[in-house]
């Protein structure tokens, strides 16, 4: 099957999902991001790669952090940036996604960063956009959030460079999490030998083990001797349903506390894609503790997004 993300000669044209990408492309993104980390430490934090290009952040669903880091990334590449909160504008007036996209194309946009609550929205736009347009999926429904997956493995690689030797645990709401799916694909492609998911049955998708992960329902057993703990956000709005008894109950069983963290390797790192629910999936003392790399994740997110945009813009 043709991968819609790649050009005929196998270069990355859009970034829609990590699934199915060759390892060489992931390595190139991560290596390039390494160079961009240094750019942020200079007096002038900009490079001229995307001078004269226009990047449109089209957010059909709100997300302050993701939009902001994409915006900073594009600006540090010297692009012009247009932020569209479509949820509150044209769509409310009845405009279709394609009309929105065609209008932006007519304004000479070069790249779309798309967030949508429907799985497949970024694919749909990539398929119908003009040929010179590059599309980056910034989260579509439950499907994928590839730049989050990439920045997470970038963070892992920075702290634990021996990726072929790692044991990684993802904890929490895997069922609703596009982040979890992207993380699992990225870790697997990069050769991490053991990826565990730890969650109650109600928060795991059916046949999750087909993604190549080991399933644990007991957090204590699942955390034993892991090198990396990736916490997932539990969405408060989903707490009302039949999936979970209560936030307090969840914290008792699947919340990361100092006591549970002690079961992992002594030098294990703790990650969270944000925004955090303190006292629900993670205790404040862990989130702010010395094994936490949650804020470095945010910093690296800019470098990784710069790398993705720079690589895409060069692959015409």
């Amino acid at each position, binding site marked *: 099957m043709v991968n819609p993300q790649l050009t005929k000669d196998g*270069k990355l044209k859009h970034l829609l999902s990590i699934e199915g990408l060759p390892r060489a492309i992931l390595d*190139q993104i991560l*290596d*390039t991001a*390494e*160079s961009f*980390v*240094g*750019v942020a430490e*200079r*007096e*002038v934090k*900009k*490079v*001229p*790669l995307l001078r004269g290009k226009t990047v449109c952040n089209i957010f059909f669903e709100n997300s302050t952090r993701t939009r902001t880091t994409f915006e900073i990334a594009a600006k540090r590449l010297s692009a012009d940036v247009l932020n569209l909160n479509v949820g509150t504008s044209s769509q409310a007036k009845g405009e279709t996604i394609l009309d929105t996209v065609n209008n932006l194309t007519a304004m000479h946009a070069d790249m779309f960063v798309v967030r949508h609550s429907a799985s497949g929205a970024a694919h749909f736009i990539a398929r119908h956009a003009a040929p010179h347009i590059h599309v980056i999926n910034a989260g579509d429904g439950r499907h994928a959030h590839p730049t989050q997956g990439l920045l997470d493995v970038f963070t892992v690689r920075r702290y634990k460079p021996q990726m072929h030797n790692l044991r990684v645990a993802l904890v929490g709401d895997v069922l609703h999490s596009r982040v979890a799916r992207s993380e699992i694909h990225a870790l697997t492609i990069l050769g991490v030998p053991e990826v565990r998911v730890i969650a109650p049955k109600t928060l795991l998708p059916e046949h999750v083990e087909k993604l190549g992960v080991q399933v644990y329902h007991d957090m204590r057993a699942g955390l034993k001797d892991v090198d990396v703990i990736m916490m997932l956000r539990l969405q408060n709005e989903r707490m009302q349903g039949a999936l979970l008894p209560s936030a307090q109950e969840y914290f008792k069983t699947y919340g990361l506390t100092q006591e549970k963290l002690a079961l992992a390797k002594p030098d294990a790192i703790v990650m969270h894609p944000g925004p955090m629910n303190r006292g629900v999936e993670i205790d404040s003392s862990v989130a702010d503790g010395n094994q936490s790399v949650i804020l470095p994740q945010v910093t690296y997110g800019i470098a990784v997004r710069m790398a993705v945009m*720079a*690589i895409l*813009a*060069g*692959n*015409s």
Partner: protein
Amino acid sequence: MILPDAEQLLITLADKIRPLLTPDTALVGLHSGGAWLMQRLLPMLGKNLPNGVLDISFYRDDFSRIGLHPQTKPSQIAFDVQDRHIIIIDDVFYTGRTIRAAMNELFDYGRPASITLAVLVNRGGRELPIEPQIAAAHLDLAPGQNLQLLRDADGRFYLQLHEDA
């Protein structure tokens, strides 16, 4: 064509750089050949010179034509560029476009007092008003010829010439 011995040229290059050194001098090697040369020059120049490496991939003028270089290396400038006398080291000087990119990148770290360009070989063919002040050798090469600095298994430098297909 008989190419000059690169190890010999390295000694010439060091001899030509030595009189230019001041207390405010810093060396910047361009990835990759210039960075190799700089590593060998540092002990030959006999001083603890501040030094750094630039990878100019993010400043190339052919990005929109050929895209991002598939392998970029982080630039590492750990010293303060402000008011320094900087000597840029590169292996082969050709069109001058690499040096333009390098100067643009350097200025994003600060405002140097001066920049001097020192290269192993000036092969001719510049396309910009940029010319090395120091060159250990001059060669006159045609546009289709490609001169490269390489290292053998023992780390010794040699030059190689090949014709573009």
